[in-house]
């Protein structure tokens, strides 16, 4: 807990192209004489924030406010159009459902593949394997292709793998929206434990109660702009107030 920022987001903007026509075949491109027609949609506009090491930050805001886009930019899956993002240490991302599992591979193979992506060799993954499977509770299905998994099993194995690699920074998008009550409780306990161990956590959630309770700070995004960034209870309160006022 040196207080050094783990994630630095500086003046990040990200535009998406909303294609009213996208000529992904040569025929249509030639016929219409252009590759595409689109209008630009600003998913993020000049967002800056710093997440200190060991801190838990929640990203809140309505649908389409840019929370997930920001998380994907931090995870380097998307590249900002302008601005910079710097991160320190090993990053593990849980985006939407599953963390990049291959449907045809078995649970076991996916765990090893995931481990490799996070820089762990086979021996290291083997030493964590039992812990991963036990936490996910998929022992009987670990040698089945994950396409046969229920969505709950899929998410549990994804979460279990993502936290087992001991990331310095954990990025999580709506992980608590799935899984049963029991698993949600265990997830929260695990995140709490990681937080105590000094893991930096950035999570996107619609569960304002959880954000207020778990996060030290929260960032409220609206239409791609950062409205407020500060102590989580305060930000959650102003977000709910604005929502009530608007409704």
């Amino acid at each position, binding site marked *: 807990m040196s207080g050094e920022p783990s994630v630095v987001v500086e003046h990040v903007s990200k535009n998406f192209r909303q294609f009213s026509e996208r000529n992904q075949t040569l025929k249509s491109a030639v016929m219409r004489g252009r590759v595409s027609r689109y209008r630009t949609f600003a998913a993020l506009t000049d967002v800056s924030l710093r997440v200190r090491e060991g801190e838990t930050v929640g990203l809140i805001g309505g649908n389409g406010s840019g929370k997930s886009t920001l998380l994907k930019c931090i995870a380097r*899956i998307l590249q900002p159009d302008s601005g910079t993002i710097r991160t320190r240490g090993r990053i593990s991302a849980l985006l939407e459902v599953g*963390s*990049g599992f291959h449907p045809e591979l078995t649970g076991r193979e996916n765990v090893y593949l995931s481990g*490799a992506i996070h820089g762990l060799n086979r021996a290291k993954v083997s030493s964590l394997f039992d812990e991963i499977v036990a936490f996910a509770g998929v022992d009987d299905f670990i040698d089945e292709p994950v396409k046969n998994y229920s969505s709950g099993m899929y998410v549990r194995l994804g979460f279990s793998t993502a936290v087992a690699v001991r990331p310095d920074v954990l990025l999580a998008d709506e992980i608590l929206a799935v899984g049963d009550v029991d698993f949600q409780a265990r997830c929260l306990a695990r995140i709490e434990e990681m937080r105590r161990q000094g893991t930096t956590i950035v999570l996107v959630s619609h569960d304002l109660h959880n954000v207020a309770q778990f996060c030290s700070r929260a960032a409220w995004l609206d239409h791609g702009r950062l409205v407020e960034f500060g102590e989580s209870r305060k930000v959650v309160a102003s977000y709910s107030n604005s929502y009530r006022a608007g409704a």
Partner: protein
Amino acid sequence: MKQYLRELHGSRLILSALVSRDISGKYRRTILGQLWSFANPLTQMLVYTFVFSFVFQVKSMKGDPSGLDSFALYLLCGLIPWTLFQSSVMGAIASPLANVNLITKVYFPRMIIPMASLVSTLYNSGFEFLVLIVALALAGSMFWPLLPVALVIIFLLVSFAGGLGLLLSILNLQFRDTEYLLGILFQVWMWLSPIIYPISLVANRSAELGPIPGTGITLLDIYSLNPIVHFVTAFRNVMYDNRMPSAIDLGMCALWALVSLVVGFLTFRRMDSRLAEFL
């Protein structure tokens, strides 16, 4: 650039994990398993040999100086490198779309994906090359002293295919036509390469016709613009004829491999961090 290379190097664990996934997944749930990799070249060899050697009675090509006299082996020496080339390029092109769940969920240098596809294609065709080597050895081909040269040619061929695959996989993300168009182009390309017929037939025709009036350019010159001509000729020189390929053929192989790799690498790198947006 330095940082990108360092990042690629740091991702070799991912490369090997993806390769072993591709290899173990390829023939999963088949009874014949790896044997399937022989099916395609074997069928082609039988059909072409039947049509050209038996029906058309094409004179088989005598290996010089090996003295080898077998149309089937002559054919295989061209067909197997060609198949490796074609499946390397096609595999690399299809690889980003086949790995959507990885690309949209986790970060790592995306070039690892076509690279893994290349390595697994090479591994899979390794069995075909083994069969070729055994068949040639049984037929009395004395290629052993020149085998390292053959390996260099294959290495250059894979580099050529790799660069082309990197370049075209980016094009395929923009225009999904690329994959289908290439399926057709590869057929044309194969018949424009000396795989089923010897290049000497083209040379003869070229000599009969003479150069294009007013220029010194012959049919053979134009024909030799096809890079595969050099790869196949050089490989066959070693394996079938048992002689050192010409410096021109080897030089052209090296040149094409280098140009293709540089262009493909630079193009892919430019798009690497934005790949998720094209899926």
